């Protein structure tokens, strides 16, 4: 079936004009933006410099606007004004004229005028108020597009006094038949909230928003989540309970590329009810790891880690011994997400690669070793920008294990001589760190030390030899036995290493191990004699320390030069530190009654390290706190949010719901219990009790007044498995029955379909009901949430009767389901008759789906059954 490309005249997928600008060369008269790119020289005049008269000229033009007939020319006039605005020229003087233009049927002109309004409303509140009438009127326009636009403009005016005008259209928009208007309205609520928080509280939009989480349209739901999170920020973000979370997760495949992020960001805040649920959520989210949107992938990783955190076993929490520990789970998560992350790093753009490398770095800290086998992915490529190269070189050191170390060290060795100085330095440092942390296995330390010694001799590249000296100095402290490799070239190196840092490290080594290096005193002497030329304090102090130390090992050679150095150093007032130190040595040497005391202090060999980390490298606490803010800028900056985000923008989200057994002590903010208060009283408020009690009101305030109680009305007994689209257990398939959210058929169609299917094929079910519904609406809305639509319904004396339908997603067959439901009032019971039309031809499958649908309806009406 594969054809090679025919030789000629075939449009190539890679190039050629896309459909959108096929007509671009001859702009259609109706297009406001159809001017072909780069063409039409006169358009440039929009952006020519403004002279003083030009705004007036524009005003003249605008005056003719009313009488102008040609749509295109009208647009041109308005466009000119907007162009000036873009340039940053104040055209607010034209406000009155522009307002006259708002009365138009041309959507393009409308949009431009709205833009103008939003830009200048703040500075001209009185004038802006005048146009609200038009906007309010437009928000009732028959065209949903216009309604949406007007609403957005109305809410973006940013005039606090406008709230009284806006709240009514807003409220109306939330019940609009078109999702576009609804989603704009939801965002409008947030804008209103920022304008005036008191009035907003009175309007009580929160409940409506929680209700709208069930909206059939995913983009509306997305906005609801975003808005609720921001409005409820003070109490820890949107109130979450099991029903809400599961409802959203089950619909996650409906969300758009960016909308999905809003749901994924909720997951880390959710505490699963039990281990099983945690795993189910992970299974449900697993496919997201395959999307091309790296934002979503990273958010999924974050969600996984947080679930692992919640359900994993910790020492001492007395849980089932069989359940995996937190660390095991996190490791499993890391293994799962490794491949997607590597793919994204390999194929993404430079910007994304940069960001993702930072994430990878953090994940390696979390689970050392997970990326080890992919180390080749982190080799530096010639064409990459420097900041990526640098990140990679830093990372490579962390990927070393006995197997990979030789390759990595060789690769780093190649980079040492790079033109980029920082790169060379980083490469040397990374090599040093591999040896220092003993991650290279046997023999690696020595071979790296040899390489570093070679670099020490690289005369042409001063920064490399200096870095090598620094790395060696640390290395010798960790592995004192390699001094035999290092010692020989040291006196030589001191002659040509120019950088202060490198020099001081060589001097330090000479001082430490000078007893075994014959030339050491003479090398130091040369430096001491040129003391006046040393500008760096670090070198001076190192010199002082080294000389004193060597003095105790080789007194005859050292004594004189020590004296000279002491004199210089005690007289040197350029550095307080040096001066004090010199005095300290001087007094120590002079005042000790027994020289051996001084000797034991100064020549102690406590220089060697016992662990493989320097104290300043141990930042596990810091890293843990970074992990809390995983997919944020914190990772990129490697710094906590408090240090770069202003306080008002920091929101402390609270994990919910608290009543789940997995909620951990650590996660729950301390509740100000009376015990703490009494302690505070007794000790006059000075004890630790204060710091515990003080932050609690803001952090542990109950989530929301509307919080915990059954937000979606389908009861807490809904588990993932009985929720609308049950995932087949064991596999990752989401569900086998999926109903369209926007199915619609007419009454006639319904009747003809109903008749077309014989009653024999129908499935009938009747169950007993615990209580009967109060109205038909209650039943309809409960079913509506599951995409079961209502064709007709009615209340008779003895029964409620419903004609319902649903359509399968096209992908699953696109068949229709027709349902007749009768609820008997007297002895409450539910009788269902379900028929299917179209869709699968396989009768077994059909039957299966009918049964599933019946289950779905039952679970939807769960509150009445049982």
């Amino acid at each position, binding site marked *: 079936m594969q054809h090679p490309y025919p030789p000629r005249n075939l449009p190539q997928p890679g190039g050629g004009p*896309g459909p959108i600008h096929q007509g671009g060369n001859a702009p259609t008269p109706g297009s406001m933006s159809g001017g072909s790119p780069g063409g039409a020289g006169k358009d440039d005049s929009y952006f020519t410099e403004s002279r003083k008269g030009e705004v007036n000229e524009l005003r003249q033009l605008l005056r003719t606007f009313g009488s102008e007939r040609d749509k295109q020319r009208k647009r041109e006039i308005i466009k000119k004004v907007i162009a000036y605005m873009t340039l940053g020229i104040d055209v607010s003087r034209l406000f009155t004229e522009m307002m006259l233009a708002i009365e138009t049927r041309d959507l393009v002109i409308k949009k431009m005028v709205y833009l103008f309004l939003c830009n200048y409303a703040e500075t001209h509140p009185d004038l802006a108020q005048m146009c609200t009438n038009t906007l309010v009127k437009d928000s009732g326009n028959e065209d949903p597009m216009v309604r949406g636009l007007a609403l957005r403009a109305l809410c973006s005016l940013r005039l606090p006094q406008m709230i009284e005008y806006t709240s009514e259209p807003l409220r109306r928009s939330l019940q609009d038949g078109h999702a576009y208007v609804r989603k704009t309205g939801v965002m409008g609520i947030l804008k209103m909230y920022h304008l005036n928080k008191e009035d907003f509280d009175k309007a009580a939009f929160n409940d409506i928003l929680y209700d709208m989480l069930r909206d059939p349209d995913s983009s509306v739901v997305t906005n609801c989540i975003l808005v609720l*999170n921001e409005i409820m920020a003070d109490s820890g973000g949107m109130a979450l309970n099991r029903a809400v979370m599961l409802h959203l997760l089950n619909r996650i495949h409906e969300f758009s590329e960016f909308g999905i992020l809003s749901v994924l960001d909720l997951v880390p805040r959710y505490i699963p009810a039990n281990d099983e649920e945690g795993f189910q959520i992970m299974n449900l989210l697993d496919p997201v790891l395959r999307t091309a949107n790296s934002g979503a992938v990273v958010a999924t990783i974050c969600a996984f880690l947080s679930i692992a955190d919640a359900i994993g076993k910790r020492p001492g929490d007395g849980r089932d011994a069989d359940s995996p520990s937190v660390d095991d789970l996190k490791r499993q998560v890391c293994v799962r997400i490794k491949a997607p992350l590597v793919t994204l790093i390999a194929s993404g753009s430079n910007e994304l690669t940069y960001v993702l490398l930072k994430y990878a770095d953090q994940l390696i800290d979390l689970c050392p070793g997970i990326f080890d086998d992919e180390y080749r992915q982190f080799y530096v490529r010639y064409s990459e920008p420097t900041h990526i190269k640098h990140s990679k070189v830093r990372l490579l050191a962390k990927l070393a294990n006995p197997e990979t170390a030789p390759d990595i060290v060789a690769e780093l060795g190649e980079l040492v001589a790079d033109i980029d100085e920082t790169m060379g330095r980083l490469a040397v440092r990374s090599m040093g760190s591999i040896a220092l942390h003993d991650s290279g296995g046997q023999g690696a330390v020595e071979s790296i030390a040899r390489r570093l010694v070679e670099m020490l001799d690289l005369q042409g590249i001063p920064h490399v030899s200096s870095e090598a000296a620094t790395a060696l100095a640390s290395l010798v402290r960790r592995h004192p036995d390699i001094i035999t490799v290092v010692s020989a070239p040291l006196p030589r190196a001191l002659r040509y290493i120019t950088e202060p840092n490198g020099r001081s490290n060589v001097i330090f080594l000479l001082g430490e191990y000078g007893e075994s290096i014959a030339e050491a005193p003479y090398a130091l002497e040369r430096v001491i004699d040129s003391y006046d030329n040393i500008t760096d304090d670090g070198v001076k102090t190192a010199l002082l320390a080294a000389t004193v130390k060597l003095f105790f090992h080789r007194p005859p050679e050292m004594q004189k030069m020590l004296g000279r150095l002491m004199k210089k150093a005690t007289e040197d007032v350029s550095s307080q530190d040096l001066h004090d130190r010199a005095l300290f040595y001087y007094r120590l040497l002079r005042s000790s009654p027994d020289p051996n005391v001084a000797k034991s202090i100064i020549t102690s060999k406590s220089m060697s390290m016992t662990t493989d980390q320097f104290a300043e490298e141990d930042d596990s606490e810091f890293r843990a706190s970074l992990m809390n803010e995983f997919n944020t800028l914190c990772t990129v900056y490697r710094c906590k949010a408090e240090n770069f985000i202003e306080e008002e923008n920091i929101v402390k989200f609270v994990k919910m719901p608290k009543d789940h057994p997995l909620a951990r002590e650590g996660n729950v903010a301390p509740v100000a219990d009376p015990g703490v208060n009494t302690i505070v009283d007794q000790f006059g408020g000075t004890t630790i009790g204060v710091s515990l009690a003080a932050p609690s009101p803001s952090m542990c305030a109950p989530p929301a007044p509307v919080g915990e109680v059954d937000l979606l009305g389908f009861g807490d007994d809904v588990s993932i498995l009985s929720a609308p689209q049950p995932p087949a257990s064991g596999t990752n398939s989401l569900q086998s029955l999926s109903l369209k959210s926007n199915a619609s058929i007419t009454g006639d169609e319904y009747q003809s379909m109903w008749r077309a299917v014989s009653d024999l094929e129908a499935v009938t079910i009747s169950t007993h009901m615990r209580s009967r519904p109060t109205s038909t609406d209650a039943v309809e809305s409960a079913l509506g949430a599951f995409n079961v639509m209502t064709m007709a319904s009615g209340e008779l004396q003895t029964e409620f009767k419903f004609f319902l339908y649903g359509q399968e997603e096209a992908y699953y067959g696109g068949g229709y389901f027709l349902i007749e439901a009768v609820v008997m009032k007297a002895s409450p019971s539910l009788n269902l008759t379900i028929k299917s039309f179209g869709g699968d031809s396989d009768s077994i499958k059909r039957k299966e789906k009918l049964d599933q649908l019946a289950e779905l309806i039952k679970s939807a009406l769960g509150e009445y059954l049982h």
Partner: protein
Amino acid sequence: DRQSTTTLLSLLSLLIANTYYLHISRWIECYRAGAEVESNFSSIFALLFKVHIKVARCGSRIDTPDGEKNEVKMISMIMILNQKGEIMMSRQYRDDVSRVAADSFRIQVIAAKEASSQPPIKRIENCSFLYTRHLNMYFVALTKSNVNPALVFEYLFQKIRILKAYLGEDFEENSMKNNMTLIYELMDETMDFGYPQNCAVDVLRLYINLGNVKPQDEPTPEQLTKQITGAIDWRREGIRYKKNEVYIDILESVNLLISSTGGVLRSEVTGRVQMNTKLTGMPECKFGLNDKLVIEKESSAGRKKSGVEIDDCTFHRCVRLGKFDTDRTITFIPPDGEFELMRYRVNDNVNIPFRLIPAVQEEGQTKCSINLKVIANFSEKLFATHVVIKIPVPKNTSKSKIKNSFGRAKYEPEQNAIVWRIKRFPGKAECMLSADLELVRTVRPKAWARPPISVEFQVPMFTASGVHVRFLRVYDKAGYHTNRWVRYITKAGGYQIKI
């Protein structure tokens, strides 16, 4: 004794003040032994040291750990700047930043000396600038909140993609200016109050710039709003073509790194499946590659067919991921026109298209000879095009004598390399190049760093991973016939041979 104790303490406090903490760590360890004598010393040191590290690390605020922390994540402003750093277009979504921010961005990023090496995220006074470039324009997102950076970049890229769709692949400053109202519209639709909204090109086209979509299939407002917010946001209904066609491009790039001894340090293929669909209605497509996992499943009955082991892949959002995860079939309703269906990565069994065998000899300080043999490792029916081999030479090369069997080779001093260009390189062919270089003596002899030989090429109808398309089935109610065209191209990614 007392005197030295006080000196020591004052010394320490000074050191801390000077934040010489590397020195402190060394000093502390120096004095551990001394501390044995006066044991309270060590505890003081340890305490001071810890405090110091804490201060250095955390800044002044130390907070109490209290569960998950997270921020409201929105973008405050999107700016598009030109090369000079002037605002061409900007849309402010929140009040917390202003146009003035563009100035600091210009000074610290665009005008900065090392502009090209700066990371794409820059923090200036608590405001984060995340930026990317298209030609010479900067697309900048400003935020004061703790955003998810990957998301912001995805949004910026999507934005550029949208603009490309509207204004052409390489839209530049002028076309931006001429279409600024359109861009304002797009900025308003794709983002509201700092949160990304509808970013699917195909749907945006429906209701922005109706002028170009006209005349016959302009949707009624009814359909339109349904579409804007519907579940399938990447394709609109009612598309019609006379001829139904699908073009599939498999584009692979080979990343190869060979050590000077001939060992393969790294070999990897990253591939993309690029599609251009011109299909009527809402067709359901099923796409199959010779994926090893699938083939093994199908040919369980003894017939042995080899497949390619795909290490990992990502898909366009139209692909049903759940379905892929259960049985690895790729099914989707495609967007109209061009899109990238999937990306994949193959690490094992890479067919290396070119083998290079270099031999470099430095003779003394003034002479150097390079021999290079290049072997094309693919079938003789195929040929590679645009082959460029860059052979680095020492900087102090003065003269070169080059002999080569194919193409043209020239010493290019500005690149410090011999550049060998071969327009058409037949499969299974071998060719040789030998160069004798004369070097100028330098005052301070410096070892030659020997950068790697790098190769660029394109091999049409060849895949280094061995991936090929097994089938593409199109199901639509109308049951029309579809023409399918498949094309393969393998390019060099980072193809380097160390010498």
